[in-house]
């Protein structure tokens, strides 16, 4: 009984398989569409969310695994930024600041020492302070010029110098930018260490802002070693410089950044912060030289006029006097 049943079911299976086999060739003649179930570019492109890990990639059998990305449309946004926003930010920061300074100079003029120069000077910055300042400043000037060159040189300088000369110049500029980044970073760290204690924001800074910092109006708000404006310069250099250092580090060592999308991001940070800081430093350089009588001495000889010091840093002078620092007789100065 059982045996015949199982034999019958076995025949049943055979019969089914046979039937399938007969039907199969017929179905093979119908068109097969392998792409119906295959991966398609359009569906992959549509699935890309803008801003996220915007890449289509797969597996690759060559050793360079970075090459496994097939299409990366995110470069378009970076291109738009680099060719549009970046130029705008740079032009506004640099030309805008220059325009502001010209207007300021035309209306306010050179800020004079209102009591005139005294015959005495007081030490404002020692040799090491000035060395750190000028190391950082010198590097920054070259870094800024080479940075501006790589952004605007193509439009502004190629018509003047021609392609070959400009490319050679820019190649040197790239090396200068890469190498001077290191003394700049060291200078930045030293500046932070030697000046941070005098740059902690305090109540005096609010008064300074309330009185327009002496820039607007005629008053001279009292200040310790650094007034609120100088503190702003300090912190924009420290924080901006830190952002430039970090982003620049990734750009300099591209394999540490973790992919080209991160490099695009760090490039944007580097460009924007760089341009804004160039604008800020233009203002700093202006007020430290032609914008104010007696101000350059602080970073020049390090010895500032006592009257200048009393006007701009009254509380600092008091502190110095208390410490027993005596003003020295002024060296003969060329008439201005």
């Amino acid at each position, binding site marked *: 009984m059982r045996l015949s049943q199982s034999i019958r079911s076995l025949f049943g299976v055979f019969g089914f398989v046979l039937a399938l086999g007969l039907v199969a060739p017929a179905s093979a003649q119908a068109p097969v569409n392998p792409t119906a179930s*295959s*991966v398609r570019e359009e569906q992959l492109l549509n699935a890309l969310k803008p801003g996220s890990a915007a890449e289509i990639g797969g597996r690759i059998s060559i050793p360079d695994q970075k*090459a496994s990305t*097939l299409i990366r449309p995110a*470069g378009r946004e970076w291109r738009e930024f680099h060719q549009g926003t970046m130029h705008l930010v740079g032009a506004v920061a640099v030309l805008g600041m220059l325009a502001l300074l010209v207007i300021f100079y035309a209306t306010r003029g050179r800020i004079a020492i209102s009591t005139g120069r005294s015959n005495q000077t007081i030490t404002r910055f020692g040799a090491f302070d000035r060395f750190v300042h000028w190391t950082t400043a010198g590097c920054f000037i070259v870094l800024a010029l080479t940075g501006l*060159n*790589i952004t605007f040189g193509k439009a502004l300088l190629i018509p003047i110098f021609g*392609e070959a000369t400009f490319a050679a110049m820019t190649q040197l500029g790239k090396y200068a930018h890469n190498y001077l980044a290191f003394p700049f970073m060291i200078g930045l760290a030293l500046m932070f260490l030697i000046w941070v204690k005098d740059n902690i924001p305090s109540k005096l800074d609010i008064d300074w802002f309330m009185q327009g910092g002496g820039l607007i109006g005629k008053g001279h708000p009292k200040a310790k070693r650094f007034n609120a404006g100088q503190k702003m310069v300090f912190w924009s250099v420290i924080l901006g410089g830190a952002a430039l250092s970090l982003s620049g580090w990734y750009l300099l*060592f591209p394999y540490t950044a973790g992919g080209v999308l991160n490099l695009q991001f760090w490039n944007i940070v580097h460009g924007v912060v760089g341009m804004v800081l160039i604008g800020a430093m233009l203002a700093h350089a202006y007020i430290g030289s032609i914008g104010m009588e007696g101000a350059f001495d602080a970073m020049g000889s390090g010895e500032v006029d006592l009257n200048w010091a009393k006007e701009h840093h009254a509380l600092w002078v008091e502190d110095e006097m208390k410490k027993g620092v005596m003003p020295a007789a002024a060296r003969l100065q060329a008439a201005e």
Partner: protein
Amino acid sequence: MARMKFLCDADRCIECNACVTACKNENEVPWGINRRRVVTINDGKPGERSISMACMHCTDAPCAAVCPVDCFYTTVDKVVLHSKDLCIGCGYCFYACPFGAPQYPKVGNFGSRGKMDKCTFCAGGPEADLSPAEFQKYGSNRLAEGKLPLCAEMCSTKALLAGDGDIIAKIYKERVVKRGYGSGAWGWKTAYKETIAI
């Protein structure tokens, strides 16, 4: 004049990587650089596809737009080439390229980039056609010899097509009509802002 393009028929590509090898050999590409590569998408899953990809010689090429020293130029055949004499190795073209084509030999200090290298559509560079200097910097100039890029010429399944955009689009269309399917011209939308309507 022709408008040179690449087209990879993903339904024919068998991921043999012969195009990659042929390119390296023909152009004597530096160690560590692959001007062409084959990427397999959805590997091991039903419907996986392999696509051979290199510089697509884009219309309105992003690399050329962002280059700070303007080292790129487009030939009469619309092939995007560059001058290694002008290139400063800044990496911007690599940031902007949607196909990951620009690569740099590691030279000198840091991870410092050397002169950029990429697919030339086997069309050499700005030096005199077929000169030793051209070969040394850019590799072969098959276009000057009246030949098409070697990667496509020797493709065993004729998946990779290179040539005038209209002609290769026509070949691809005919294939799709005859066999009844096709997964599209990969990269065309991104590179040429158009695709092949079937």
